């Protein structure tokens, strides 16, 4: 153990004997993405250890879920990853549908894909913008929010809410799209596509950005898997895993017929279906830059999926169907399902005793596992790297604390 530290080139000591200090980062800190509290043990600027303290946003949503019917719990899933509430709704709805062996209509299926992928774009936009903020540049944050607002406008039209939608629900969706929505959505995509280049110019390829992120917080493939990391964090480490492709049948069936390539580096390069900036020479697979870059790729990928979904959805005749009753009984048994939320694999587990109210619900949050790896990544980094590393994990405290 000691030798491992000995060989660590990042850890240096100066002749000047200095003392360590404990620094409290958060829960009211500009760059801890909500109410995360990190206790840093630092020696000057060098961080020797960090310890996350979570739970400031704990509401015990799982306990609440034991007192509500499955559909009544949907709004509580909204408040988990509140930046991508649609995906949370979807995860829970699919889990209950899995237990009930219920299949939604074809049209609802495509609408779900459409909404979920749009929500993924919105979430990654926040992740990208806030990451810029963590690194000290403010403008990309507002650029990202400018585009996100347009997505939220679309969502508002569809379901009336801008943050906590409860749109996708058990057995379908609460409402069909209003007329003209698809056109506005396509208009948004056409307008948004060229803007991604600007993001690349401002962040991805910016020399200072690369210096701040490349070879920082390198998360090895093995460590990522061992900690149960998922989503862009896992793919940023080069693990080719995406629940939309590798998940359970009920989830992958949703994406049946959709063409997309998992955004992961294989054989030294990323999928080349679009024009991407080259990987900088300093970047190492698994570092902050790659995690960020995977997110940027997924934005493009999701745009593709949204376009495909629009085509399929408009090709479907009929209605999306009605969602299940609020008090629909759930058959006895248990079901666990992981879906690919923007932040990672969001797992829901439902145990039923045959009544409408589940006996036990469980939310396995991706950010929870992603944050758990932060202490490993921050060992021996500088104070300025802590926001850079934690920011690259793109966590949402609502999801961690539940």
């Amino acid at each position, binding site marked *: 153990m000691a030798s491992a530290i000995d060989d660590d080139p990042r850890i240096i000591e100066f002749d000047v004997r200095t003392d360590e200090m404990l620094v409290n980062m958060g829960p009211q800190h500009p760059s801890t993405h909500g109410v995360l509290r990190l206790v840093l043990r630092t020696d000057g600027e060098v961080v020797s250890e960090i310890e996350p303290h*979570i*739970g400031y946003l*704990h509401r*015990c949503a*799982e*306990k609440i879920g034991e007192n509500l019917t499955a559909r009544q719990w949907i709004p509580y899933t909204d408040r988990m990853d509140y930046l991508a509430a649609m995906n949370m709704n979807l995860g829970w709805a699919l889990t209950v549908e*899995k*237990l009930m062996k219920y299949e939604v209509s074809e049209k609802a299926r495509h609408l779900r894909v459409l909404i979920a992928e749009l929500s993924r774009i919105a979430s990654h936009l926040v992740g990208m913008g806030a990451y810029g903020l963590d690194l000290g540049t403010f403008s990309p944050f507002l650029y990202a929010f400018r585009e996100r607002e347009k997505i939220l406008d679309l969502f508002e039209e569809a379901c009336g809410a801008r943050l906590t939608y409860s749109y996708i629900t058990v057995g379908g969706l609460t409402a069909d799209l209003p007329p003209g929505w698809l056109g506005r959505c396509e208009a948004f995509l056409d307008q948004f596509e060229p803007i991604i280049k600007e993001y690349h110019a401002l962040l991805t390829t910016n020399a200072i950005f690369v210096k701040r992120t490349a070879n920082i917080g390198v998360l090895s493939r093995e*460590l990522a*898997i*061992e*900690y*149960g*990391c998922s989503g862009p964090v896992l793919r940023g480490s080069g*693990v080719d*895993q995406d629940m939309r492709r*590798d998940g*359970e049948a009920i989830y992958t069936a949703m994406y049946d017929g959709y063409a997309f390539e998992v955004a992961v580096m294989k054989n030294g390069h990323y999928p080349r279906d679009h024009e991407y900036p080259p990987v900088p020479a300093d970047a190492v697979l698994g570092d902050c830059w790659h995690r960020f870059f995977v997110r940027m790729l997924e934005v493009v990928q999701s745009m593709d999926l949204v376009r495909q979904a629009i085509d399929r959805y408009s090709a479907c005749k009929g209605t999306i169907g009605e969602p299940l009753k609020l008090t629909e009984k759930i058959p006895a*048994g*248990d*079901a*666990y399902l*992981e879906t690919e939320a923007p932040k990672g*694999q969001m*797992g829901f*587990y439902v*145990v039923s*005793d045959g009544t409408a109210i589940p*006996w*036990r619900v*469980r939310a*396995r949050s991706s950010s*929870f*596992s992603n944050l*758990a*790896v932060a202490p*490993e990544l921050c060992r021996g980094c500088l104070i300025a790297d802590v926001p850079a590393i934690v920011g690259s994990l793109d966590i949402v405290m609502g999801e961690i*604390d*539940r």
Partner: protein
Amino acid sequence: MRGPDFLSQLDAALPGAIVGRNLEAMDPWIEIAPERIADVCQWLDTKSPVRFDALECITAIDWFEPDAKKAAKVSWQPHTELVYHLWSTAARVSLVLKCNLPRWKGDVPGQLPEIPSVCGVWRGANWHEREVYDLSGVWFTGHPDLRRILCPEDWEGHPLRKDYEQPLEYHGIRGK
């Protein structure tokens, strides 16, 4: 290698570890003797033909009905069930392990049931086990740093237990 073949391998490697199984369920599961869970996980992670290298989730289900009338009707005995959801990155398959624990150790209320920690197998289990301990009250022996994670350090009780009573007051904050 899937299904019964896989199970027989596990049984051969660790005889007596599997105490129950249900391969017809929606998510097929096997029940492991609680004291063997760490060994089983170790085997699954390192030696099994399908290496389960990721622990996705640990769930504790409190099978207890506080309402005496309803309790008379249920078919099960009160117990705490631990569910481990494993995932193999290479083979892209999942596995569900279940363990049945008594609600209280030695049926003495207040004594938390114990089960070996799997932190030595997956480091990611650390926080999951802390959460289960915090919310459901299961003591993981051999855990490096088992303390509350979501609730405050001085919180009393384990909220996800069915007989949990919400405190009326916490540091001057009204509870109900």
